[in-house]
């Protein structure tokens, strides 16, 4: 208590300039005190708040059972494997944010972004992509010679799968994918695909913004419809340069004619 009083007295003297007046002149104004004392205090409070939020999130995540079912582990392993492969192929990991895109004038000049945009078009038909990834995950087999991972993969049997095991009867009941397990697998895939889509859309909207910002104005002729027209024009220009945009971006102001 006495220590607190001492600290407050010190703060007060610091604000009012007592004890410091001899050394500094002129005395600290209330604004000086605010900048020098209150702001660091606020910063500390912000950091504490953030840490608390992270802790809370982690705690929530760890509420589920720690030990998953075998089929579930196998399914997640297989799904992540094919999805990682898709990400690599799309080079999605190269663009954690918009600033990574190479730009020249009013348009991007980046082959990897060009590849991403093209690959991302698969997301225009998410159900198909999801099916493809699901069946690819069931059919996945580690490359020959990859002995390290070969032991991690064992057969999962979905009677509806496009590729069936050589002897489905030998597959244990624990690894047969029924409708409930299939739904879980699809949900897992959809969750990650949603993140892809969000990331690609963010990149493309930023590209649209930058392109629209850089492009010179055109005469506003009759028949154009303002913002929608502006978006379509930018989308066309980007597409023409090899950067097709997702339908979800292009059709922001209305579905386009097929």
């Amino acid at each position, binding site marked *: 208590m006495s220590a607190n009083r001492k600290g*407050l007295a010190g*703060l*007060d003297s610091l*604000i*009012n300039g007592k004890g410091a007046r001899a050394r500094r002149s002129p005395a600290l104004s*209330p604004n000086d*005190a*605010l900048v020098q*004392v*209150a*702001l660091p*205090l*606020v910063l500390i*409070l*912000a950091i504490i708040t953030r840490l608390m939020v992270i802790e809370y999130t982690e705690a929530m995540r760890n509420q589920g059972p720690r030990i998953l079912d075998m089929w579930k582990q196998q399914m997640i392993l297989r799904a992540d494997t094919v999805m990682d492969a898709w990400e690599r192929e799309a080079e999605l990991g190269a663009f954690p944010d*918009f600033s990574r895109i190479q730009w020249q004038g009013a348009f991007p000049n980046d082959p990897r972004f060009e590849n991403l945009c093209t690959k991302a078009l698969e997301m225009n038909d998410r159900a198909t992509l999801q099916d493809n990834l699901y069946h690819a995950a069931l059919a996945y087999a580690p490359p020959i010679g990859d002995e390290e991972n070969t032991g991690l993969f064992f057969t999962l049997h979905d009677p509806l799968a496009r590729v069936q095991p050589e002897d489905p009867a030998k597959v244990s009941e624990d690894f047969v994918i029924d409708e409930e397990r299939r739904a879980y697998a699809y949900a897992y895939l959809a969750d990650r695909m949603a993140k892809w889509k969000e990331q690609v*859309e*963010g*990149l493309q*909207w*930023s590209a*649209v*913004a930058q392109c*629209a*910002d850089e*492009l010179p*104005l*055109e*005469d*506003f002729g009759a028949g154009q419809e*303002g*913002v929608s*027209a*502006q*978006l379509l024009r*930018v989308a066309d220009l980007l597409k023409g340069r090899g950067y097709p945009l997702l339908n979800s971006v292009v059709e*922001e102001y209305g579905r386009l004619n097929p």
Partner: protein
Amino acid sequence: MIGKIIGRSLLGAWLLWSGSLCMFGENTDPKAGAKKILALRAAAEKARMYLQGAADVNRTAIDELSNLLSQEMLKRVEEFQAKKKGQIPTEKWLENWRMEELQKSVTETVQWAKEQSPLPIEEAEVLKRAASDWAKEAPARAQEYARQSLKQVYQKARDLAAGEQLKHLQNNLSYPNKEELNARLNQLFEEKTKGLSPLAMDDFSVLDEWLQSMVGETGPVFEEVRKKVAEMSTDMRLEIAKQYKAQFEQVKGMVQKNEFAQNLKTRMEMQGVALQALAGNFVSDLNATPPVYGVFDASEKLVERAAIHWESKRFDKFLKETDFWLPSKEGIEKAIRADLPNHVSLGKSLNLLTEKYLSNARQKLALEYGGKKWSQYFADAFTKGEQVARSLDNRFREGIKKSSSEVRKNLAGEQLNAEFKDLLAPSFPQESQVVWFYEQGKSKVTEFSDLAKGLDLSFDQKTNLLEETRLMAVELANEEMMPALASLQKQIENVRVLEKEYLEELKEDVSKGREFEEILQDWQSRWNELWKEEKQQVEERWQPHFELTGKELSKAVRQLYEGMISAVEQITPETVQSPTEELGGEKETIATDAVPVENELPESQEEKKEEKAKGGEQELNGGITEELKVFVGLADGVFAFADAPEGKCRMLFGTPDGVGAFAMEFDPKDVEGAARNISQSLQKPLGLVLDGNAKGKEDGIFNLFSASRDGSEIRMLFRVSSPAIRHQMSILVRQQVQEAIDAWAKKSGRKAPNLIWQDDVEL
């Protein structure tokens, strides 16, 4: 204190937190950012389109703008009054209007963009994208628009505004009130019209200034409307004139053509009828547009004038058609004969007759023409000197003049027969009467008084004779007197001709010693010879020579003869020279008894005097000048002969105002010598007179001497107051003067004036 610090700290923390969240949010929503940019682009393109179109002028906008500008003009008429000056505020207004329109479009666009964007959009962001320098480009475009559209918009707006203003003025046009208008029209009527003439349409233009001042109280008006305002006052004037004319047309027949009922006689009756017609057809309605004023006072005045006029005319016609009111001839004759001396003059006679009979005529007429109802009215009118009274006076005088002329004519005939029997006798005129008029210098009888003297009428006779009688007597006398006087005049003139033509011969006869009777007979024969031809031109009665003619011839010859006899006796033949030599020759000066006056001073002094004489200011001896003054107006030069002491005579020469005056004495017995001396002395003075006469012709100063003359003649008076001077002297001097005139004319290069010689012998 600590609480304060904590409070401030928390506030700062919240601000920082929300700011960082906003920044974070913006950065992490690329879709929103893109939408904002797209909206900005769209808005900027729209704004740029508006900016680019800001200078364009289209027809629809022109119409709309013209309407708006016309409204603005009506609010600020003073600034737009003059057509040319009004362009300046118009251009400014157009520029402002365009700027406002542009700003409105931009604001709407920005609002629209805000609706399209999830993020806030500022107008400045749009304008920055729309133009490199919106603050400069937009006003420039607006100015350009104002310049381009000015002509179309301004003219149309001006037309609209002017039309609107004119309409407003016309709707609020206030005509003058009836009282004021009546006063103006009355004044106009009095000044511009006479008799039965109404005001002409042109007469109303005098009202223009006044009407314009009424219209002009409407405040400032457009230049175009100003002309229309003037026309409005004209319209107003035409409306007033139209109403007046319509009123006149209503009564025109009555006013100008006497179309009143025949039985109406007095002005009141006629006026009443005309006013009734006017009042029935022109009812006042001052609230109408334009107001109907009703019957103007000027119309009523015209009716009043007409009533007075036609009252008089109708009465005059009655007077012309009747004569019961005039006195009879018998009455007039009786009145004249009863008082002849007062009726001698026609004018006085008419006055007396009027005085005597007019009141009676008035009474008769008042009763007859006015009847019972109006007899008193007319009786009063006749005595008040009104129009009818003047008509009556004129007609009455005319009537009695006509009657009395006949009466007087008869009476004059009677008087002529009674009082002038002599004039009708064949013996009239007797020679004594002719000679009397001749001696009076008359060529005919001009005055009755002369005739009365010549006929020796008594006083009573003179006072009782009418004007007409006198005139008739003079005319009758002249019928015989004029040829007689003409004959006598010619006969005497022939005597003068002989005097001139045979003077030299007479000298020779005298020197030869011929007898007087013998010479006289020759002269009589010569006179007869002359008369023989000329008598054909006179009436037969007057062809024989008058007794006076014989006497004049005898007297002339005798005087010449006697004068020459004494000259032959006293003067040696050498000294008797021709008149020409005497007057114009340069013979040596002969001793003379002439009295030297200033005209005969030494040469240098004479010249000075001459110069003075030319200036018209010659100083003369009072005596000579005074003597000459009595001849003013009688002649240009005077020779005045009078007795002088010691048996001598004195001659005074000069003009009546003293120019060239001199006096000399001579021996009257030596006629030739005296004539020679006179001739020598006369040279310069006569020259002065001739010069003066010629100059007078030029400047008119010397014309004052004579009553009637021109420069082509010179009159000389030879006045003799001495019995010693013979007629021969007159003849000699006259010849010398004539030759001197000829010599002067030759020398001066002027035309010689005709010499008019007049002998005046007092004895």
